[in-house]
C-alpha cells in the first residue's frame, strides 16, 4: 500500500531520465580513467625514452598518443552530452541549485580548455616540435587532468553533502557561500578516491594489453616495457587506493549514514552489527543469502563491536533507498571491495618479487591475473559510481531535492525515444572505437612482424599507409 502511493508520486519521466543518465554516464566513465591517467603514463614512458635514448620506449609513447587521439575525442563528445543532460533531464536541479554548486564546473571549464590545448600540442607535436619543447609542453597535462577532476568531483560531492547556502521561507537557496559549497565534507574523500581509481584503472588497462601479448609468447623488450611502466604505476597506487577506499566508506558512515546503511544492508539501527557479504534485503527487513560475519560491520565502521550503525528504518521509507536499490548498492559495493582486494594481492605479488629478486613474476597465473585486472578495475569503477549514485536515492541533492522534483516535464515518450536513439548512437560509436583500436593493434603487430614498411607495390591501394603529409612544401622542412 505504502509503496503504491510512493510510486504514484514519481513522475513517469523519472525512469527514462534516470536510465538515460545512467547509460550515458556509465559509457563515458569507461573513457575517464584513460583521459585522466593515460597522459601521465605516456609521459613517463616518453621521458624514459628521451633520457635513455630508448627507441622502443618512444615508439610505445607514440603509439599510445595515437590511441589517446581517438579516445580523447570520444571522451570530449560523450562528456559534452552529459553537460546537455543536466538541462535536458534535470532542469529542476539546475534551475534551483545551479548558482550554488555550478562554480566547480567553471574550474573544470578552464581545465578542459587547457587539456584540449596541451593534448593537441602533444599529439600533433611529435613530428615537428623540437623533442625537448614537445615533452616540456606536455608536462602540465597530468596536473590539468587533476584540475578537471576537481571541478566534477566538487559538484558530485556537493550533491552528496550539500553545503554553503541557507534556505529562505520559500525553500530557495540564498546566502550562497562558494567555498563551503565546493569544499563539502565528502569532497576530499571522493576526490582522492576517484583520482587513485583513475590511475589504478588506466595502469591496469594499458598493462593488460601487454600481459595478453606476453601470455601469447611475445616476450620482447617492447612488451616488457609496455607492461612494466603502467603496471608499476597501478601497483604502487593500489595499496593507497585500498586505504583511501576504507576511509571514504567510514566518511560515508559519518556523513551519509542512510547511504552507508544501504551499502551494508543495515535495516535497524543497532550495535554489534553483522557484516553481510552479498545477500539480498527484503521489504520486511530480512536478509536472505549471503555470508554473515557477526560484529564485523560495527568493527569496520567504528573499530569496536559496540559501534552503533544507523539503519535504513531510521528515516521514513520515502527518504531512503528502496530494498531493491539497497541490494543493488550493497552488491556493487561488495564487488568493488572484492575486486580491490584481489588487485591488492596482485600488486603485492608483483611488489614483493620486484623488491626481493628485481624481476617480473614468471608464473603465467600472474599474467593471467594482470590481463584480467584491466577489465576488473573498470568494473570496479562502474560499481563505485553506482554505489554513490544509487545509494543517494531518492535524493538528487541529498536531503534537499528529490530526483522526482528535478526531472524534466518533457513527455516520457519523447524521453524513451531519445534514450533509444542515444543507445543506438553509443553502440555505434563505442563499437567503432573498439574496432578502430583492434585494427590499430593488428596493423602495428603486422608491421612489427614484417620488420619495417612493406614496399609500396605490395600494399593494397585501400590500405595505403600515409607516409607523409599530402602537401609538398610542408614536408620539405620535415625533420624526418
Amino acid at each position: 500500500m505504502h509503496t503504491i502511493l510512493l510510486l504514484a508520486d514519481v513522475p513517469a519521466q523519472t525512469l527514462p531520465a534516470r536510465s538515460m543518465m545512467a547509460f550515458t554516464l556509465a559509457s563515458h566513465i569507461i573513457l575517464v580513467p584513460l583521459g585522466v591517467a593515460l597522459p601521465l603514463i605516456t609521459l613517463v614512458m616518453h621521458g624514459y625514452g628521451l633520457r635513455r635514448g630508448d627507441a622502443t620506449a618512444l615508439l610505445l609513447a607514440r603509439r599510445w598518443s595515437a590511441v589517446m587521439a581517438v579516445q580523447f575525442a570520444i571522451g570530449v563528445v560523450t562528456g559534452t552530452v552529459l553537460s546537455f543532460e543536466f538541462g535536458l533531464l534535470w532542469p529542476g536541479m539546475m534551475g534551483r541549485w545551479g548558482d550554488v554548486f555550478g562554480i566547480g564546473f567553471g574550474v573544470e571549464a578552464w581545465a578542459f580548455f587547457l587539456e584540449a590545448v596541451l593534448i593537441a600540442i602533444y599529439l600533433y607535436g611529435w613530428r615537428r616540435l623540437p623533442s625537448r619543447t614537445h615533452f616540456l609542453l606536455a608536462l602540465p597535462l597530468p596536473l590539468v587532468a587533476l584540475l578537471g577532476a576537481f571541478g566534477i568531483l566538487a559538484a558530485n560531492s556537493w550533491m552528496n553533502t550539500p553545503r554553503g547556502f541557507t534556505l529562505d521561507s520559500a525553500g530557495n537557496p540564498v546566502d550562497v557561500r562558494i567555498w563551503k559549497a565546493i569544499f563539502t565534507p565528502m569532497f576530499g574523500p571522493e576526490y582522492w578516491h576517484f583520482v587513485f581509481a583513475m590511475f589504478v584503472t588506466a595502469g591496469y588497462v594499458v598493462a593488460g594489453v601487454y600481459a595478453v601479448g606476453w601470455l601469447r609468447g611475445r616476450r620482447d623488450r617492447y612488451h616488457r616495457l609496455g607492461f612494466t611502466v603502467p603496471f608499476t604505476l597501478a601497483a604502487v597506487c593500489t595499496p593507497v587506493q585500498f586505504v583511501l577506499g576504507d576511509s571514504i566508506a567510514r566518511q560515508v558512515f559519518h556523513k551519509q549514514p542512510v547511504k552507508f546503511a544501504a551499502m551494508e544492508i543495515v535495516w535497524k539501527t543497532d550495535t554489534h552489527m553483522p557484516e553481510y557479504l552479498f545477500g539480498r534485503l527484503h521489504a520486511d527487513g530480512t536478509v536472505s543469502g549471503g555470508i554473515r560475519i557477526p560484529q564485523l560491520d560495527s568493527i569496520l565502521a567504528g573499530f569496536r563491536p559496540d559501534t552503533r550503525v544507523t539503519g535504513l528504518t531510521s528515516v521514513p521509507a520515502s527518504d531512503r533507498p528502496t530494498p531493491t536499490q539497497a541490494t543493488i548498492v550493497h552488491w556493487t559495493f561488495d564487488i568493488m571491495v572484492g575486486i580491490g582486494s584481489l588487485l591488492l594481492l596482485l600488486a603485492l605479488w608483483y611488489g614483493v618479487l620486484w623488491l626481493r629478486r628485481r624481476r617480473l613474476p614468471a608464473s603465467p597465473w600472474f599474467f593471467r591475473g594482470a590481463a584480467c585486472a584491466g577489465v576488473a578495475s573498470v568494473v570496479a569503477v562502474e560499481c563505485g559510481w553506482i554505489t554513490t549514485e544509487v545509494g543517494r536515492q531518492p535524493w538528487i541533492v541529498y536531503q534537499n531535492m528529490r530526483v522526482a522534483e528535478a526531472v524534466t516535464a518533457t513527455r516520457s515518450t519523447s524521453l524513451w525515444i531519445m534514450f533509444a536513439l542515444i543507445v543506438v548512437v553509443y553502440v555505434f560509436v563505442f563499437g567503432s572505437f573498439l574496432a578502430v583500436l583492434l585494427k590499430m593493434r593488428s596493423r602495428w603487430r603486422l608491421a612489427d612482424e614484417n620488420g619495417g614498411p612493406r614496399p609500396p607495390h605490395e600494399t593494397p591501394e585501400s590500405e595505403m599507409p600515409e607516409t607523409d603529409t599530402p602537401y609538398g612544401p610542408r614536408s620539405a622542412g620535415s625533420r624526418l
Partner: protein
Amino acid sequence: MAGVIAAVLLLAIAAYACGGGTDYGAGFWDLTAGGAERGKRPRRLIDHAMEPVWEVNNVWLIFVLVIMWTGFPVLFQQVFTTMWLPLALAAVGIVLRGAGFALRKPARRLAGRRLYGAVFAVSSLLTPFFLGAAAGGVASGRVTATTTASTDVWANPTSLLFGLLAIATTATLGAVFLAADARRFAAPDLDRYFRRRALGALAAVAVLAVVTLFVTHGDAPHVWHGLTHGAGLAFVVVAALATLATAGLLVRPSGAWSRVTAVGVVASSVIAWGLAQRPYLIPTSLTVAEGAGASATLRWLGVITLVSVLLVFPAVALLYWLDTHGELEGLTDADLRRDGTGEEA
C-alpha cells in the same frame, strides 16, 4: 555584476560561433565535396586543417553552458525545458560529429572512411541548425517559464531562419579558413575552390540576414527594435561592413585578413543580437537581473572568467600560433612502426 556576466556569456557564445562555427563549416564542405575520388583532396585538407584545433573550438560550448547554469540558472532551466528537442538532437549531433571525425582518420578502408565521413558531415549540418533554432526560440521570446517542449516553440519563422543562418555562417567561416589553410599548405587550386564556395555562402548569409530583419519585425519585435536602434544597430553596421570587406578579400588569393573579417561578420552579428535583447535574457519575459544567480556566485564567476582570460587565452593563442605556423602535424603510419623513422633527436 549580472550585466558583466551576461556580457561574458555573450562573448563566449560569439567565440563558440566563430571557433565551433569554423569547424561545423568544414564539415559542411566535407558533405558537399562530392564522391570519394573528386572530394579526396578537399577532404584531406579538411582533415589536416581541423585535426589539431577542433576539440579546443568545441570547448567554448562547455564554457557557454557552465556560465549559463551557474550565472543564470533560471535561463538554463527554461531554455532546456522549452527547447528540449532541438537541444537533444544537437547533443546527439555533437557526439556523432566528433566520433565520426576522430574515427575517420584511423579507419583505412574506403567503406569505413565513407561511413564515418558521412556521419561527421551530416551531423555538422544538423547540429548548428538545431543550436540556431534554439537561439531563435530565445530571440523571439517563445521560451517562457510556463511553456513546455513542443514543436511550435522551435518550428517558427525566427527559429528556422536562425537555424539556416547558423548553417550559412558556419559554411562561410569554414570555407574562408580552409581557403587560407590551402594557401598555407601550398595548394592554390584548393584556395580558389574554397574561396568560390566562401563567396557563395557569404551571399547566402547576406540574403538570409536581410530576410531575418523582415521576419523579426513581426515575429520578434523586441529584437528587431534593438537591431535597428543604438548599439545593436552599430554592430549590425559593423557586420555589414565586415561582410563587404570579406567579399572583397575573397576575390583575391587568400591572405591573413579574410579570416579576420569573416570572424568579424559572425562575432558582430552575435553581439548585435545580444545587445538587441537588452535588458532581457529572454525578450520580454526574463531580464538579466531577474535571471541572475546569487551575487556571491556571480563574483566568483567573474574571477573564473578573469583566470580563464589569463590562463586559457595564452594557451589557445599558442595552439593557434603553432597550428598556423605548420608546427602541428598528425603522426603518420611511418612514425608508428618499429623501425622508427620517428627518432626524436
